[in-house]
């Protein structure tokens, strides 16, 4: 292939890639942002996570085998970004805590929470990251166990284990909170 043909081919590929990215944003952008927000509980973090995921998807577009798989593939990238960001935030919060500079917890001002929901949230956010992620994706985002397994890059049995342990821990903490003994 001579230089001109190579350049044309490269330009075509870029155009296809850009079209595909716009289509991805059009079809799944809102859902991706909602998922990221649910996982991260912060508008700016969610925004950044979706942008990171889109950038990665754009860069690694060649790895996508079929466009039918785009949704699941992108979702997987997004969830990974959110988990990384949660870990980074946890480390940062711990470090700031050691320095006595722990930030005040921020209220999520654009979510619907019931009284009971507000009660659950602090406990939910203190669960281990994988349990929390699995619970939010399963019950908050209505994803199936298979989808969560693909997104978290673990087996379905592992997802079920995270869900069971997360639910058990949540119940334990809520009962303790309410002064229950069961």
């Amino acid at each position, binding site marked *: 292939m001579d230089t001109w043909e190579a350049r044309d081919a490269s330009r075509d590929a870029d155009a296809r890639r850009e079209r595909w990215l716009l289509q991805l*944003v059009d079809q799944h952008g809102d859902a991706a*942002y909602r998922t990221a927000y649910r996982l991260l509980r912060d508008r700016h973090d969610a925004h950044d996570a979706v942008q990171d995921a889109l950038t990665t998807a754009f860069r690694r577009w060649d790895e996508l085998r079929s466009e039918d798989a785009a949704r699941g593939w992108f979702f997987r990238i997004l969830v990974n970004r959110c988990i990384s960001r949660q870990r980074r935030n946890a480390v940062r919060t711990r470090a700031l805590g050691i320095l006595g500079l722990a930030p005040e917890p921020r209220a999520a001002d654009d*979510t619907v929470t019931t009284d009971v929901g*507000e009660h659950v949230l602090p406990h939910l956010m203190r669960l281990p990251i994988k349990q929390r992620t699995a619970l939010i994706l399963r019950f*908050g985002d209505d994803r199936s166990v298979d989808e969560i397994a693909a997104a978290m890059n673990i087996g379905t049995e592992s997802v079920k284990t995270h869900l069971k342990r997360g639910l058990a821990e949540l119940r334990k903490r809520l009962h303790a909170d309410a002064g229950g003994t069961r």
Partner: protein
Amino acid sequence: MSAEDVTCEAIEAAVIDGRSITAYADHIAGCPACQGLITITHQIHDTVAVTPHTAGQKPQWLAELHARRARRRKVLAWTAGGLAAAAGVTALLVIQPWSSPTMIAEVAEDHPLPLQEPTVPAQEARPATAPRDTPPSPPPGVGRPAWVTSDTPFTGYCIGERAEALRASDVGISCVGTSSYRFTKDDGRSEARDVALEAVSLRVAERIETRFFTEKVRPAYEPAFRALHDAYDKANDDREAYRRLADARHRAAIALTRDAGASLPLREADWYWEEYPATDGKGTEFMVWVRYDLGADQIGQLIQAYEAARVRDNQHVVSAFPLLAFPFDGFRGGDLPADGPVTREAVLPAAPIR
């Protein structure tokens, strides 16, 4: 399947897998542990649920990507200055020969613009000859005001308590509506006003916590609200989806302005427009932004207005929430029995409770 045959583990597995649990109803009815499990999963859902379709939640870049197809080259822009500078605006309009007489009258008389009845989109209504509202020539250098943070057509957003830069000394909110591309500024302004008032209603709805509202009112309007917005979002140039959403928004705006009384500012705090070449190459179109500012006390009064039941004609009633305009065609506000289901008959009584 008898209740004895069922184990809590089986129910937990069904909940995790997303399978139906109706077959286990007998067991669940007598098992606090299983009830607790199901309650917790619902609580997780409620806890992380994001409010439906408030464009303000959408990141700016995402909104821009969505709007990319619609965006056209801006040819003119002008801000109206707002009520706060009403006197100044009047003076400005007087010295500018291109000013719309309607605008001068509005500012001079200082009363709210009447909301128009739902109309066909201006593209259809516009005469083939020159537009009634000759585009003015704004002074050079007019840029977008700071409160215009999105140009996705026909969406609204609120700038909330965090917007210290805009409202340093208040904890109220500013809600902004953006029109679609309209052939006259007046059409655009009316439409943007409806969108902004919808954003106000959404913000108020988030803060109403009465049982009647959460169990009866919200479930009554939310599915239709989502459906109309989703249909519009998914459609590409579908006039019918646009018209249905525009009509519902207008009905909701009428209801809110009628029932909210002094809780709602009489007029918008500011508005701004931009002029674009029309897609068909004939003439120009306008995109208009309208901003309402509500102080904390006004928000409180609005919440109170839709929360508090009162007795009228020996019946407990509450003000019908404006977003009920989405499921109910003829809705124009008024009162709603506070102790019954939110049905069409209740919302649109033969003899309205007023």
